[in-house]
């Protein structure tokens, strides 16, 4: 489950796409390791690589917001040894 910060909830351009992904995630897990492209409440496709997913996203959505998300049962955490974010970021 993605945890959005308060500010991101207020002005998250990908809020609809992230909610759509969460709704579809269980069904998408048969494609684990691949990349989903979500536009609004629609799944545009599942692709083997980030590059392919990004290309399709821009081709189909142009400059409208869309989400590229790797399909993973457990959301991985990216670690940074520098204190580059606070718990309540911008």
């Amino acid at each position, binding site marked *: 489950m*993605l*945890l*959005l*910060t308060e500010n*991101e909830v207020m002005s998250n*351009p*990908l809020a609809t796409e*992230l909610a759509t992904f969460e709704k579809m995630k269980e069904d998408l897990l048969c494609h684990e390791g691949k990349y989903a492209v979500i536009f609004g409440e629609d799944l545009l496709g599942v692709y083997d690589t*980030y*590059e392919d997913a*990004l*290309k399709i*996203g*821009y*081709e189909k959505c*142009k*400059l409208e*917001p*869309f*989400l*590229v*998300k790797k399909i993973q049962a457990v*959301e*991985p*955490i*990216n*670690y*940074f*040894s*520098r*204190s*580059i*974010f*606070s*718990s309540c*970021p*911008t």
Partner: protein
Amino acid sequence: MPHLTIPIHPVQGPIVELIVGLSAPRAQALKAAGTAVPPSITVKFLLDTGASSTVLDETIIAPLKLVPTGQIMVNTPTTGGAPVARFQYDIALMLYHVDNSRFFQNLPIIATDFSAQKIGGLLGRDILSKCLLVYNGPGDRFALAF
């Protein structure tokens, strides 16, 4: 294998300049919409083996007209026990070399405020995993081969 040998900055550490631009698909989308493609920017990155992925100073987001196309969870010493969500942006990076530059055409990165640190970003292990890094502390130099 092309490489750069660079003095270690006495305060900031191992700094390398990279050229940051739009990912190819985003540049094409802007062109198709009749919108000018922002020029690439030279950015000072700190090599950071403690960073899972590459991070860009958020002041560079606006001039490149970047918009988020993803979101990941991150944890740092100040986020406490709970990771926080951060937007991902897609960019292109170039490690310049006079004979053989290395391009990373579609790279997902996150952004934060580095203004106080006088750097433009962190070059994380997503890129370093494709390079050979030799940190010569006694020699005050590092070498990055790619």
